[in-house]
């Protein structure tokens, strides 16, 4: 700290050396003389800049030594004006193409887009806000090529996964680095339970109010991100937030929106057959008290109600009737064959659609921005209150942000921002757990009413407790109190709460001594406190005795930079710029858990009510230090060459038992070239701009987690089937060697990427095409390689992986129509990326990422990243020379033709698990359109994802229970042979009916086969559509807008279930699972925005 304060004091000392500065003002107009509002005026070669006001006027302090103003405005040709002795400079802009647009690149350096040898794509703030998404990540969908975004669920407050150019790391984080105003910001998803169960989790970038975003720049390749080092290897999303102005006025913006959400589609359930099964050759209805799980009973239309406990078909379990002989499970009575009861036909209940409600989100935000030549500020606040489509799910977010800057002396700018966000969530359990909302809901037979006769009249969230529990508080579920929680019970008794307090921001000082020498220091911080509580009231199927789980996550992240930079003309033709700097990053995450079980009495959901409390702590800390440099040389605005290098030291490579600094260090270079060949051609009206980009870069990286250089002991959790056994056991605790073997010899992994791109603009920029092809390779990838368990360990950290990647990105921009009152702008973003796992570890051909036994995602040698691996049908060529042992072998499906076997006539089971699906899409296209007519704007975004398999675990499980429509259809089929061959190779001629015996065998739910439910998860959807009207300025307001927009209103897919845009494992690396995931939602939003 002493040294740091010394540096500061040097800065302030140097202030005294500063010279006075001059002020320039003027008006910026278009070629018709109308003022341009918000045009950018920048002192060339500095970070000093401003924007024009409503009258097109600006005023700017020009540091001494600077003599050129750069004026730019979207859609207009950028101009440079020499200042000389002028104090007023008026500029008339002509519409044209943005040849010299400045873009923010790594470390916050603004560079001419023209000079870049790699792909960067910018998304403007208004595109973010008009998307109607409450999270910046969701708002990016379809707006940039090379970017893939997957929502985890329709739960309010659920997170999204973002990938730039597919995956980079084999087992580590693959989501891009998020940099806000120059410093890294936490976008983690922290899970408090396993990845396939628990509640939805947020990604922390959701804490940023989208209204505060000025622009988002997506840095895609390694050359673009090399200066960020290790953390940038996955791509970088650079977010620039809005700032104040220096126009001696205050701009006030108020916006308010209301959004209404509903669920999209659900899996097809059958409503034909009742709870029950075949017994004695007859289909019989079985009462809930039997615990019967399946809907394999008689047709509901063949049943009617009866109430007499002495009826010959009356159920006989003790829990079927109360003391007064009244049937307990349905107010109408129990079910008997038609003609033997009271004549009242059996009801068919829809336990799904009426459950969900219309979710509502109300957002209000207010911002004040202003300032003068000395200082600027922007203060904003927002308040979001959302209720989910699932009753009782909530998401509240409050944000406050202050950004300010002072320019005490010429050349010196000190700026800072502070964000405070409080996010509160109430969540419902989902996925693979018996308290998962859809698990019990979808399995409930159509003959059972989860509302106990209260029906659709009730208000969802306040439904009477008699729907889901009896007077003794035992649960009322279709399996007689066992099985799964009643959905209404869950939303009242098993909620998860999350309170996130987050503050992040930075303090920054930039000092420009002259063109050739400037300094910058940027100190960033990001502190997150996330307190969680998960309730399981007594009687929950997860914890019948009740359970309270508390978790507290504290994440502290500091990111500090010190840079030296400069630029200037060496000769008339050659311009040179340089940057050198150092970056110190520190990450400190601590988790504390407390788990209380065995509640004393119901109704008091607090850990003090628990009889057994265990707790644990978990930490993840690391630091890195990077020294970086970059030199850019340009020749006549035609040829730009950039060289950069970085030396990193990463604590995660250090071995505490034998620390050597050099073990933690690694060096990597990058080079890029931009050739603006159109400069050498005669200006033709057809091709107005052409650039070829070439780049090559290497990026090193340490292990994905801290502490991987040592083997440790852990307090084990003993688990197999059923619930786990946690230590301490009866007051005795114990330690166990971790199954993950540490490796003191880890070295950094290295990613090498080559990229070539072409940027062409035609017809004065009305048509533009940007194409990029890249190819990359990760070598010595650090992964937790699987070991044979007989070695005593299950995994070891090894530098053993190799993965190649390649991809194509295309962005097509066009303005097909442009008239005085009407314009149509369209943009198509195309993304195709492919990552192939080339090597894992010696002798290892697959590595588990996430999922289940029957179908899980793995890294599989020779396959695309994260292949779905699981049970497959036996094929003719299994075990022959053509069988790779990993992929599905050739030949037809072999049918089990052993008449003794229970699965006679069904597909035979391949004893080997196979790669049965590829969750990676073939390509993604976003087609974004904006039509302006006078003050009206109409926009729509079509989102097309081709391919990308999803394992439909919901359909798989529901087939076992006979709940899916599929099982209603197949059980009524005439006996037919299944396509395939018998063991002698002849065509199968064994007729079977795919009834309960089929769907509860290896071929159905919970059986060994996963292949039959791998489905194409591609879609075409109307992601956004909106219409807005912009008010002109009036006496009382500077303008504003009102609009209506829709999100996700329509989509089409071949997937047989909920919206395939879902991920059971949330934002993790293992994608491609649907197991009773929450359905997605569609929304309509009304928004009003006013400027004062």
């Amino acid at each position: 700290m002493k040294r740091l304060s010394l540096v500061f004091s040097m800065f302030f000392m140097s202030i005294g050396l500063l010279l006075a500065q001059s002020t320039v003002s003027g008006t910026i107009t278009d070629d018709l003389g109308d003022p341009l509002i918000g045009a950018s005026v920048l002192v060339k070669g500095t970070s000093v800049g401003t924007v024009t006001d409503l009258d097109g006027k600006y005023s700017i302090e020009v540091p001494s030594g600077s003599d050129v103003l750069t004026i730019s405005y979207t859609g207009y040709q950028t101009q440079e004006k020499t200042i000389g002795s002028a104090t007023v400079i008026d500029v008339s802009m002509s519409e044209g193409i943005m040849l010299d647009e400045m873009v923010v690149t790594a470390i916050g350096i603004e560079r001419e887009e023209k000079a870049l040898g790699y792909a960067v794509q910018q998304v403007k703030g208004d595109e973010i806000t008009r998307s109607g998404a409450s999270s910046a990540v969701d708002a990016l969908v379809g707006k940039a090529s090379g970017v893939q975004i997957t929502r985890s669920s329709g739960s309010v407050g659920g997170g999204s996964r973002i990938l730039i150019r597919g995956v980079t790391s084999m087992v580590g984080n693959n989501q891009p680095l998020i940099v806000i105003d120059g410093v890294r910001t936490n976008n983690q998803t922290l899970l408090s339970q396993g990845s396939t169960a628990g509640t939805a989790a947020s990604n922390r970038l959701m804490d940023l109010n989208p209204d505060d975003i000025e622009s988002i720049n997506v840095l895609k390749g390694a050359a673009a991100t090399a200066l960020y080092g290790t953390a940038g290897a996955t791509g970088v999303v650079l977010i620039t937030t809005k700032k104040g102005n220096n126009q001696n006025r205050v701009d006030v913006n108020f916006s308010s929106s209301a959004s209404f959400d509903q669920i999209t589609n659900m899996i097809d359930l059958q409503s034909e057959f009742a709870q029950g099964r075949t017994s004695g050759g007859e289909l019989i209805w079985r009462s809930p008290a039997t615990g019967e799980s399946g809907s394999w009973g008689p047709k509901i239309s063949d049943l009617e109600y009866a109430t007499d406990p002495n009826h010959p078909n009356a159920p006989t379990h003790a829990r079927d009737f109360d003391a007064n002989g009244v049937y307990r499970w349905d107010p109408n009575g129990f079910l008997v064959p038609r003609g033997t009861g009271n004549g009242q036909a059996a009801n068919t209940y829809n336990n799904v659609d009426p459950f969900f409600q219309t979710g509502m989100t109300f957002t209000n935000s207010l911002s004040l921005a202003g300032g003068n030549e000395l200082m600027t500020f922007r203060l904003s606040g927002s308040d979001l209150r959302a209720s989910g489509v699932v009753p009782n799910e909530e998401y509240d977010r409050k944000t406050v942000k202050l950004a300010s800057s002072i320019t005490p002396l010429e050349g010196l700018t000190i700026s800072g921002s502070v964000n405070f966000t409080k996010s509160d969530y109430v969540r419902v359990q989902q996925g693979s757990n018996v308290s998962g909302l859809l698990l019990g809901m979808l399995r409930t037979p159509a003959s059972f009413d989860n509302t106990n006769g209260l029906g659709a009249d009730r208000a969802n969230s306040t439904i009477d407790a008699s729907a889901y529990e009896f007077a003794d508080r035992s649960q009322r579920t279709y399996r007689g109190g066992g099985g799964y929680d009643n959905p209404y019970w869950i939303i009242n008794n098993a909620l998860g709460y999350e309170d996130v307090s987050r503050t992040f921001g930075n303090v920054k000082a930039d000092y420009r001594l002259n063109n050739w020498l400037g300094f910058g220091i940027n100190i960033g911080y990001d502190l997150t406190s996330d307190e969680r509580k998960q309730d399981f009231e007594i009687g929950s199927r997860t914890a019948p005795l009740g359970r309270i789980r508390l978790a507290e996550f504290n994440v502290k992240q500091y990111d500090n930079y010190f840079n030296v930079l400069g630029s200037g003309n060496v000769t008339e033709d050659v311009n040179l710029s340089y940057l050198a700097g150092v970056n110190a990053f520190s990450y400190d995450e601590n988790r504390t858990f407390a788990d209380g079980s065995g509640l004393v009495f119901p109704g008091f959901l607090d850990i003090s009510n628990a009889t057994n409390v265990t707790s644990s702590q978990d930490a993840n800390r690391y630091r890195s230090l990077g020294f970086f440099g970059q030199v850019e040389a340009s020749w006549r605005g035609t040829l730009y060459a950039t060289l950069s290098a970085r030396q990193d030291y990463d604590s995660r490579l250090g071995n505490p038992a034998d620390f050597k600094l050099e073990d933690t260090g690694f060096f990597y270079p990058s080079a890029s070239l931009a050739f603006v060949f159109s400069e050498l051609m005669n200006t033709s009206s057809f091709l107005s701009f052409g650039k070829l980009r070439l780049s090559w870069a290497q990026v090193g990286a340490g292990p994905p987690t801290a502490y991987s250089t040592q083997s440790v002991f852990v307090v084990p959790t003993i688990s197999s089937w059923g619930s786990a056994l946690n230590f301490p056991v009866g007051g005795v605790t114990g330690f166990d060697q971790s199954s993950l073997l540490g490796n003191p010899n880890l070295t950094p992994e290295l990613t090498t990427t080559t990229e070539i791109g072409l940027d062409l603009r035609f017809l004065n920029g009305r048509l533009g095409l940007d194409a990029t092809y890249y190819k990359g390779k990760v070598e010595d990838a650090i992964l937790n390689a699987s070991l044979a368990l007989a070695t005593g360990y299950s995994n070891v950290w090894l530098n053993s992986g190799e993965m190649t990647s390649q991809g194509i990105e295309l962005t097509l921009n066009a303005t097909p129509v442009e008239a005085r009152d009407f314009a149509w702008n369209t943009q198509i973003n195309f993304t195709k990326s492919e990552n192939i796992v080339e090597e894992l570890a010696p002798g290892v051909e697959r590595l588990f990422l996430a999922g289940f036994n029957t179908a899980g995602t793995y890294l599989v040698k020779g396959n695309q990243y994260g292949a779905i691996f699981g049970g497959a049908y036996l094929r003719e060529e299994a075990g022959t020379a053509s069988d790779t042992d990993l992929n599905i072998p050739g030949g037809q499906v072999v049918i089990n033709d052993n008449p003794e076997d229970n699965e006679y006539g069904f597909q035979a089971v391949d004893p080997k698990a196979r790669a049965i699906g590829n969750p990676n899409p073939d390509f993604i296209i976003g087609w974004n359109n904006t039509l302006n007519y006078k003050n009206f704007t109409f926009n729509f975004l079509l989102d097309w994802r081709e391919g990308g398999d999803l394992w439909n675990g919901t359909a798989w499980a529901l087939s076992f229970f006979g709940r899916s429509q599929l099982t209603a259809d197949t059980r009524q089929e005439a006996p037919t042979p299944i396509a395939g061959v018998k063991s002698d190779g002849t065509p199968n001629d064994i007729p079977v009916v795919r009834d309960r015996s089929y769907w509860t065998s290896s071929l159905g739910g919970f059986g060994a086969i996963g292949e039959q439910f791998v489905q194409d998860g591609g879609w075409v959807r109307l992601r956004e559509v909106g219409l807005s009207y912009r008010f002109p300025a009036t006496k009382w307001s500077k303008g504003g807008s009102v609009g209506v927009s829709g999100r996700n209103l329509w989509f089409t897919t071949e997937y047989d279930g909920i919206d395939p845009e879902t991920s059971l494992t949330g934002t993790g690396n293992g994608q491609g699972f649907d197991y009773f995931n929450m359905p997605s939602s569609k929304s309509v939003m009304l928004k009003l925005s006013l400027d004062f």
Partner: protein
Amino acid sequence: MKLLNKILFICLIFFSLASCEDYIEGDAINSDPNNPTSVPISAQLPAFQIQIADMTGGDFSRFNCMLVQQIEGVARQWSSFNQYTGLTPNRFDSGWRDVYENVLNEVKIARANAVENGYNHHQGILNVLEAYTMQMATDVWDDMPYSDALQGVDALNPTYDTQAEIYAAVFSLLDQGVAQLSGPPGPLSLGSEDVFYGGNTANWIAAARALKARALLKQNNYSGAASEAAAAFADASQNMAFQYPDVNAAGPYFRFNVSGREGDLEFNPQMRGLLESLNDTRLGMMDGTFNADHPYLVADFYQEMVTFREMQFIIAEDDVRAGGSQAGHDAYLAGIKASFARFGLDDAAYEAYVAQPEIDPGVGNLTLEQVMTQKYIAMYLQPETYSDWRRTGIPALTPTSGTVIPVRWNYSANEFLFNANSPDEASVDIYNDRVGWNR
């Protein structure tokens, strides 16, 4: 340029190599603060003892006792296991993991600690526990990695030992264990961290002999087994067992049946029929829905690894094979009596039961069928019942699917995937490949 020089100088100091090293190494930044790199033996022992109890009553009990039709898989995955078709290699992953990673590797680490410090009694019980685990494992998996196992990255593909070699090691471990437990403890005595016996070396020695009896039985050395059995436990209080405390740390069946897998397993109708045919009053304790209300599969379960009553039936089996005597007959009745006691039934219930001539035909009239049937009932949910059934074919069982009941477990999928020295996956036939002692 004076200013520039100053600033550069400061930067050099600020980021000098020394402070760089301090920043990257300082505060033991790469040491896991919540997980130690070494622990004393007393912190390690309870973890793997409880693991042994839990796998005995977990995978080993569920699969073995399902195959011998004491329990029945009726829902979800367990219905396909019950039909045998679902018994794919990946289903045996957790058992394999428990044996190698969670028990044997822990024993190895603890043993190195005990040897280094001269903790003789600890070495003794480690040998007994390893013998117990290897015997239970090889009885279902036959040949397994043993002498080449547990070497981490130094032997990535452990080679297989034959079952005969593994049994030789089991005998040797048990003999060593008895010798070590019979001598002085060294600088550290066993204490309450021994959750099976609380440090009672006499009980450990008895357990070692009981395990030896169990092993000799599979070598068809009935008299050897009987004499070890007779020298093992004086009564049921010496059983090698773990007492699960309460619902917060409940026994394996309670956790399976009540939390998460309720309805997957139920009492097997075959066994119900058998007990009904014998007017067996223990039926009431075994039957019923497998849920929180089950009379036997309670939260505070007493999980036995090897018992006095098993020893009585070993004595009775040897005796009946040799023609039958009073001693064997007494052992037979003592075994049944201990079983009644285990189910919480009183002496009167036991007396009434054995008063039936088909249960107790008198000295000299006992058949192997009767002894093994009673052992099958008395050993309800003990993994050892699967070995007894494979040895003797008693009770006679009808396959639930196909024509054959599997006679072994498949190897773990993990083994086929990651151990190049594992047998070819296609060559393992769970229906016909009998384990070494069963050929």
